[in-house]
């Protein structure tokens, strides 16, 4: 094949203005905003730039980061999952309950993650085989999983005081100065970001979300793709639930109320479209970092928790509005 053919006598925009393209990217904008907040906060609060605060902040977004990875991939494939908060809590509760029944914590965790995977597969079945909408199916599962949490615990947190130290290590330990949670987070982010950009498997997720029918007419088994992305999202909820359990040393049936909205907001701020076909892991992670940074900044500044939700909601609205106009101008 002749690779030297120039299709664009008028000058290709592929190579030259790399800087320009980077400036146009949403990730760049998010990084600028995050850095800006950093600078402002380090002046506003003497406590902000301390190691303890940095560590607390990164711990806060690291586990949610796993959830936002699953959500972003699901959004790209054209789906959505409202059950992430309750399924995460369910993983915690089931693993804790099994542990208290005398099962090894690692086995209990594996079983809880397997259960979450099964829940995802169950939702995937209803979406792809029965033909219901993601929104409705996951709404039902959100309620059911929360109910199951309360059922298993009687509505009270399970104290897991006898958890072995090496298990608690995944949630509380550090390698040198770096918390294990951050290490796990980075591994997941790098792995999924790479896979999403480079593997044929995840390219099919983009095709399916961009135009499901066109994907089917390209020989892609779109139902299988949607089934898998739905399942993956719930599996990651399971993993996140276990890490939270190790970190808290307890299983809380009411954990993650409203978490799904934060996760979806982060993915959307990071560039995922509710119509499917677009989104990036890096963007979504930056979205989660931004929201988390705003929360902890407001807490440091002693702003009432009630204001926090109002401000976070406004950020979401502002982000999608700006994006909408930028897209319009580009198109």
């Amino acid at each position, binding site marked *: 094949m002749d*690779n030297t053919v120039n*299709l664009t006598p008028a000058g290709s*925009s*592929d190579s030259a203005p790399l800087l320009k393209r980077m400036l146009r990217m949403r990730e760049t904008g998010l990084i600028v905003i995050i850095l800006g907040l950093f600078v402002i906060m380090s002046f506003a609060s003497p406590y902000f730039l301390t190691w303890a605060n940095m560590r607390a902040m990164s711990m806060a977004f690291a586990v949610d980061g796993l959830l936002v990875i699953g959500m972003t991939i699901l959004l790209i494939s054209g789906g959505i999952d409202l059950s992430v908060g309750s399924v995460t809590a369910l993983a915690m509760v089931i693993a804790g309950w099994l542990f208290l029944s005398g099962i090894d914590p690692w086995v209990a965790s594996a079983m809880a993650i397997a259960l979450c995977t099964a829940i995802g597969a169950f939702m995937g079945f209803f979406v792809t085989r029965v033909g219901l909408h993601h929104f409705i199916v996951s709404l039902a599962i959100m309620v059911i999983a929360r109910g199951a949490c309360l059922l298993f615990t009687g509505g009270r947190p399970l104290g897991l005081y006898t958890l072995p130290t090496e298990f608690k290590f995944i949630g509380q330990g550090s390698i040198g100065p770096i918390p294990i949670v951050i290490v796990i987070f980075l591994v997941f982010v790098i792995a999924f970001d790479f896979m999403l950009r480079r593997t*044929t498997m995840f390219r099919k997720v*983009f*095709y399916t979300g961009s*135009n499901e029918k*066109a994907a089917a*007419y390209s020989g892609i088994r779109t139902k299988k793709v949607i089934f898998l992305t739905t399942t993956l999202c719930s599996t990651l909820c399971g993993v996140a639930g276990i890490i939270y359990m190790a970190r808290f040393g307890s299983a809380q049936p009411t954990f993650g109320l409203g978490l799904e909205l934060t996760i979806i907001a982060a993915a959307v701020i990071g560039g995922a479209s509710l119509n499917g076909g677009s989104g990036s892991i890096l963007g979504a992670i930056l979205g989660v970092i931004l929201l988390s940074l705003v929360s902890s900044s407001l807490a440091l500044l002693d702003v009432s928790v009630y204001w926090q939700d109002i401000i976070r909601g406004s950020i979401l609205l502002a982000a999608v509005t700006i994006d909408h106009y930028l897209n319009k101008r580009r198109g």
Partner: protein
Amino acid sequence: MQDDVILRISNLSKSFGPVKALRGIDFELRKGEIHAIAGENGAGKSTLMNVIDGILQPDNGEIVLDGDPVKISSPTMAQQLGIGFVHQEIALCPDVSVAENIFMAKTNVSRSWLMDYRKLERDAVDVFRQLSDIDPSVLVKHLSISNQQLVEIAKALTLECRILILDEPTAALTEAEAQTLFGIMRKLADQGISIIYISHRLVEIFDNCDRVSVFRDGQHIVTQNVAEIQPSDVVNAMVGRVLDNLYPQKQEAPSDEVILDVRNLTEATRFRDVSFTLNKGEILGVAGLIGAGRSEIVKGICQLEGDVTGEVWLNGEKLKLRNYQDSISHGMVYLSEDRKGVGVFLDLPIAANISALNLEHVANGIGLIQSGTEEAQAKALGHKLNLKCGSLSDPVSSLSGGNQQKVALAKMLSVNPRLIFFDEPTRGVDVGAKSEIHRILRELATEGVGIVVISSELPELIGVCDRVLVVREGRISGQVTGDEMTEVNIMHLASVMDAQGSVA
């Protein structure tokens, strides 16, 4: 009527970023005329119409309506000024009755607070009596596409407009429906309504319009009375060069080598006992009325839809296909008639579109996509098909219709196919790209790729194909070759047994 200009546009320009969509356009519309607008896709026709309808604002230039300079800031304002626009895309509420859909536009301009349902309904029925026998109480979603198009036109007619813009209204209509529409257009013109009529079909322009304006590259090239200009002059003005030969050379010597052999293909409801063969080097056409089962048959062969029984032999091998993926891996692919709906991924980059059918081809052993290979493949196929694009990482939506179709075609070629089913390969494609696609079809056939073309345009089938199969009500009703390939023969085979007795 000579000097009765209702709409005058002078020195109007409009840019989208660096792209100059309209450059110093001058245009005049007279009262009561049917004024055709011709031009390739991307010539600026739609942009100009969107300016007239207030959807887009011009960068500079002047619009004078009935002697008064106007600034049309929105489609609502255009309606108030008496400008009606029937878009090519259908924008109706599917779950609402035909009559209510028509009311929707009308109530929008009504000045009174209370709706006069009785009058609106009467008007709607009146309009429909001229158009067709659609029952106004039927829900829109139960209508065929062509009837939905008629509802769109009816909607515009109820607005008592002075200027009516019709953007390719006949694309989805049958010949008979189109003739009815032309009758209505003439009646409206006689009542003093000015009609701007956009069409790719020159025959329609020359049979039904008073004047024709040709656009090219955002510029107004010429306006002439239809009686004073030849169709070939219009085509030349559109493409800016002389198109010497509309269709490529036909096959020289027929070959005996059979590529495709279909035996007794049957599907539950849509087709029965379909048998035919395709020889090497030949282009086989498939004709038939809309709904006769043409697309369904080829989709059945590829296992894209339907539960099909019967045998399909490809190059002497009996195929056992479970799904379309199997069909692709045997080198048998289908180019959809619905380019924007299923042919391409509009939001995704060109290169990613081209590799969609065979990602393994641009990936390494462990399933990682090599972007260099992907770009190279897109570049090579784009070059072969003379694809005109900025960057291969631009989304397909940035291309013109003809170039989008080339992307869809490149996607087919990326799997080195042995057989391609083309469903309406030139629908919505401009004249220049059309003849390029015809040339590509012939080249592929000569290279030994099996080519089957479905088309509703009989001149295209006759011009391009070596043999044409005719489908009627899910069966092959006959085939024509050589001198027998005439529109009359094909239409006869396609419609003679038609239950309604309506020979189109």
